[in-house]
């Protein structure tokens, strides 16, 4: 329910809500709490000084998609005021005293809480390469990173991007847009190796090369050389590429430091239950810092993607406000576009182990590629559960496929249709008719008239 819920019997009156983190998960929680309770005090703490902005937009800004003087606002500037939220920005939460129910800030202030959400996100993984501290070596995650890169672009001629995932490729597109001669260098054999097949990765490699962005595969950096300022990157095969800008896009490490000194268990990310609770009473976690159950892969993992972060924050918010709600699990998913070619990848796309079945099509002349991965459930002669999808060149209908993965329904009856690239909602309608308990809700019923 987005609308206000008036039956808050379980809510503690005037509970103080504190949210550490000012991005997707934190905002998801704040909006959920405020939707349920118009007056409870909500405090958002962030070490970043900016008002609520979308860090996911920095790559679009760098690539020039947002136009001049673009804003990265996720919500209007009056958001905190309108929602009656106290925002403590530019201050780091350094410690949680769970006995006293207080968050300690870097300036010594103590913020009391009744319900606390850790939405502390993640930080770019360090490369452990010699010279990483040199000027010109950047992560690509925060508004600050974006400003620093813009500054560096003014005098840079060459750049190296380390990482061939969506962030790396978006960073490379951005540098290319600013006429910086850019090389993408990756250890893996092809681009997008975590989220797509070689066929698809190679297609994008061709596309980048066509636009004069070089791609080097199978090499790892050993040193960022230079003085105070980085001047080149040396690789393990002896290659040395001149670069005044190096962007590292090697993934994200959960910011779990605040768990120290508490009972909160950490296993890469903060361990959460189905209501996004941690092991400490009244402390919740959500977003890129949280370990959740992956609904498709059926294992605990950190799915550090925007839609999951918001949804986890929202579920946490409901539970914090005393309205029980279950998180039905995360899913790995990415969407991007490079040089006019769209790309979406959801779920398990490079299956390992028994029981999987993959079907892919590449229509090179049309710039289309799609791949679907099915899992064989026990008793089924063939793969009958959709668990993964990669779409390139045409992404419409991706959500229909994602929903089939989320619902984990038997798709045998429409499998050939899906494989042939017909995955509009009408294909799913027979399943919706038969399994009203699975496809629950007004919106589905409206399609059955």
């Amino acid at each position, binding site marked *: *329910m*987005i*609308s206000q819920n008036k039956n808050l019997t379980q809510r503690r009156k005037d509970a103080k809500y504190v949210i550490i983190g000012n991005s997707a998960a934190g905002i*998801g929680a704040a909006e959920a709490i405020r939707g349920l309770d118009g007056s409870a005090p909500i405090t958002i703490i962030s070490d970043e000084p900016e008002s609520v902005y*979308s860090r*996911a*937009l920095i790559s*679009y800004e760098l690539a020039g*998609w*947002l136009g001049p003087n673009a804003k990265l*606002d*996720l*919500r209007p500037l009056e958001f905190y005021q309108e929602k009656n939220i106290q925002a403590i920005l530019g201050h780091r939460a350094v410690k949680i005293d769970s006995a006293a129910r207080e968050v300690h800030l870097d300036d010594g202030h103590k913020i009391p809480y009744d319900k606390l959400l850790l939405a502390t996100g993640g930080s770019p993984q360090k490369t452990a390469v010699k010279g990483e501290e040199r000027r010109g070596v950047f992560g690509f995650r925060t508004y600050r990173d974006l400003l620093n890169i813009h500054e560096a672009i003014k005098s840079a001629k060459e750049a190296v991007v380390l990482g061939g995932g969506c962030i790396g490729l978006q960073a490379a597109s951005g540098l290319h847009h600013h006429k910086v001669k850019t090389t993408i260098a990756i250890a893996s054999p092809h681009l997008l190796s975590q989220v797509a097949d070689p066929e698809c990765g190679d297609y994008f490699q061709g596309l980048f090369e066509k636009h004069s962005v070089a791609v080097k595969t199978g090499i790892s950096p050993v040193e960022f050389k230079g003085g105070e300022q980085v001047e080149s990157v040396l690789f393990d095969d002896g290659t040395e590429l001149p670069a005044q800008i190096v962007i590292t896009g090697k993934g994200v490490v959960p910011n779990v430091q605040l768990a120290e000194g508490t009972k909160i268990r950490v296993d890469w990310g903060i361990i959460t239950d189905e209501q996004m609770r941690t092991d400490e009473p009244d402390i919740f976690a959500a977003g890129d810092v949280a370990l959740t159950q992956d609904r498709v892969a059926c294992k605990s993992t950190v799915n550090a993607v*925007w*839609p999951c972060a*918001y*949804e986890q924050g*929202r579920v946490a918010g409901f539970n914090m406000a005393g309205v029980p709600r279950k998180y039905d699990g995360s899913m790995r*998913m990415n*969407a*991007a*576009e490079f040089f*006019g070619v*769209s790309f*979406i990848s*959801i779920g398990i796309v490079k299956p390992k182990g028994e029981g999987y079945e993959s079907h892919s099509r590449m229509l090179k002349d049309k710039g289309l590629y799609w791949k679907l991965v099915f899992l064989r459930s026990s008793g089924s002669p063939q793969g009958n559960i959709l668990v993964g999808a990669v779409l390139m060149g045409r*992404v*419409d*209908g*991706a*959500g*229909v496929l*994602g*929903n089939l993965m989320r619902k984990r329904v038997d798709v045998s009856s429409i499998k050939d*249709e899906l494989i042939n690239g*017909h*995955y*509009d*909602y*009408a*294909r799913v*309608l*027979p399943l919706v008719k038969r399994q009203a308990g699975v496809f629950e*809700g*007004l*919106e589905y*019923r*409206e*399609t059955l*008239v």
Partner: protein
Amino acid sequence: MENHRKIIAMTKLCTGCRSCEIACAVAHSQTKSVFQALFETPLPRYSIEVQHYDGVNLPLACRHCEEPDCLFACKAGAISKDLETGQVQVDLSKCVGCWMCVMVCPFGAATADMERGKAVKCDLCREREEGPACVPSCPTKALVHGELNDIPK
């Protein structure tokens, strides 16, 4: 949830003529003329689509969900829901074409307009005084701008 009107299709009445698609495209064109719209570049998009499968014709448009996944997933803060009317709308000036909504819409009702770099979905003809253009365009009156309760059983 009272009076949250949207486009509901009575599929048994739909002949699959696609008049609704044309009416939608014209309503969202520059010229608002069916003949001139054909010559616009880029071509106007439509956001109701007649899908056919298993003997059913389904004119499908955005469900304006009670809990819109697209709104929650939008990286640009471009999607909002009006709690009074129930309408879920995209602010195209904010949309960056990140395709998050395309990735999460269970109905596939948000699509990628690659030419304009913007998401496309049913806006219930928010700029058209007479209301959604698809409804009067349907020769068999298969489309209703209303709620599920308004549909005759």
